[in-house]
């Protein structure tokens, strides 16, 4: 074979890197702007001004870490953090447990599956304002659950979580779970549907009971689904605000205060932006602390093609 192997003289130029796929870059511009200007920029702005003594309007009168010092010396902030901790842990655990249990129940090839699914999911369509209001009412001791049960003859029955500083957070939890578990159930259900049929068969041949199979085999297999769910729950927990405002207003006293509410109230009611920004910076820090392991699990572990 005679091959004219002299390379053609016209050696094509490597095109400009920036212009390559310029249309994709152009189309991503809204995202880039959002990411940089709104999220990164807004966050940086917030952090920056948390070091100022801004009151009603942002000002650059630097005060160093004063705002943080005050923040951590404020009872209300400490209470808020504690409340969020209790609510967060309970909500995280219970949402996952209930969400998964319901999904598992629905996955057992039951009748009326879609009816049950809709029932569990519909609260998610309602706003927290509505949720808070309704549950505030149902939990009202004078005409809610307590009075009904008493009406049935159980006179000493007491169920008044919202007016007891020690239990109010669980009152919030009842409402929060009511609204939030549906979506998690949906995600879990989707995850369960993705599990290889053969695993179930293998477990049956091995003589492993249904519950044990779920616990020992299926749940460990659903790790990515649980991570997704966890992230969703965590993000909603950190943002917890509307529900508290609608259901308890932070009361009785300060017993159901949460950090997001602290931020808002100090920014707008106390007109102490610096303090509000300091609090929100602390919240951001906690977000980052949660996110880093997640990002590591999601993106660090495996590379997508």
């Amino acid at each position, binding site marked *: 074979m005679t091959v004219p192997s002299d390379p053609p003289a016209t050696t094509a130029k490597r095109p400009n890197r920036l212009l390559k796929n310029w249309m994709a870059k152009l189309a991503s511009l809204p995202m880039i702007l959002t990411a940089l200007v709104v*999220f990164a920029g807004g966050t940086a702005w917030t952090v920056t001004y948390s070091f100022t003594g801004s009151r009603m309007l942002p000002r650059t009168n630097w005060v160093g870490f004063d705002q943080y010092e005050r923040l951590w010396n404020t009872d209300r902030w400490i209470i808020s953090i504690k409340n969020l901790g209790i609510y967060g842990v309970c909500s995280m655990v219970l949402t996952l447990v209930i969400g998964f249990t319901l999904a598992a129940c629905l996955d057992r090839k039951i009748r009326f599956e879609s009816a049950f699914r809709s029932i*569990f999911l519909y609260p998610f369509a309602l706003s927290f304002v509505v949720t808070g209001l309704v549950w505030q009412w149902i939990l009202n001791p004078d005409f809610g659950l307590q009075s009904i049960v008493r009406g049935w003859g159980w006179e000493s029955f007491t169920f008044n979580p919202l007016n007891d500083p020690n239990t109010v957070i669980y009152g919030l939890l009842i409402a929060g779970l009511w609204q939030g578990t549906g979506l998690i159930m949906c995600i879990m259900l989707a995850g369960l549907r993705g599990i290889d049929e053969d695993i179930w068969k293998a477990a049956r041949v091995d003589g492993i009971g249904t519950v044990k199979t779920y616990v020992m085999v299926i749940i460990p297999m659903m790790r990515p689904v649980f991570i997704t769910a966890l992230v969703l729950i965590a993000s909603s927990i950190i943002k917890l605000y509307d529900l508290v405002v609608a259901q308890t207003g932070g009361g009785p006293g300060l017993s159901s205060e949460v950090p997001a509410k602290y931020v808002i109230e100090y920014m707008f009611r106390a007109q102490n932006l610096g303090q509000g920004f300091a609090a929100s910076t602390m919240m951001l820090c906690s977000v980052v602390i949660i996110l880093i392991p997640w990002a590591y699990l999601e993106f660090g572990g495996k590379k997508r093609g």
Partner: protein
Amino acid sequence: MADISTNSAAGPRGPKPKKTFSRGNIFLYGTLIVVSMYYLLPLYVMIVTSLKGMPEIRMGNVFGPPMEITFEPWVKAWSEACTGINCDGLSRGFGNSVRILIPSILLSIAIASINGYALSNWKFKGSETFFTILIIGAFIPYQTMLYPIVIMLREIGLMGSIWGLVLVHTVFGMPILTLLFRNYFTSIPEELFKAARVDGAGFWQIYFQIMLPMALPIFVVAIILQVTGIWNDFLFGVIYTKPATYPMTVQLNNIVNSVQGVKEYNVNMAATLLTGLVPLIIYFASGKLFVRGIAAGAVKG
């Protein structure tokens, strides 16, 4: 040999008899029904209460069915309830909500789907970084962003207009929606994209002619999430618009929070139900599609 089996041929035959009331089944359906009651209770209370008159409500029992069904609370919530000096209930906000909802959904989903598409098929240097920032953005409590956004909107001159609000919804819907679309488009075989490139299709042609028609399930999820989010939004609606364009939730808040002596629970409940109607209908209607879409877009993540 064969006689062994012939002897036992009298044994079980055909399908295994199933007990309808096996312990497992009782437990399963029992759990589901009890839990369903927990989920349905508030809805029941809302509906029942909204159909009662005030005297009946004062008598106490929230769970009792109305002795006398009245639709007055609904009428009042829709068209008569007062906030300040305006007494036109939710009706005014409904139109506003729709006017806000539609462009917000269109814009946010359009942008997020393009983002997801670009992120999965047209990766460029830094695209993942922007995406990561975006995802972290999903965790920022909205309230802390109020001020910066006010300033940004002021700078681009959209403060107070519906378009400003649409923009805000687009921005805050972007992280989750982009994630959904990105995961979905990533799950579409890469070969399809390559084939289209070989066929000479460009960025937009591939998006519109190849990707978009395949993305129905994830669009359903995106629409549902956005309808819920935008329709139920109060904070942005009240801050970034003005009274003439306040969405329904602002009216709801006004009705619910304007206490005039005793709380008119029946009107509140009716108002609440009316406000929640749009997302509720969408949820009950979408049913299976939602789970399927979630499976396609969220779980694979």
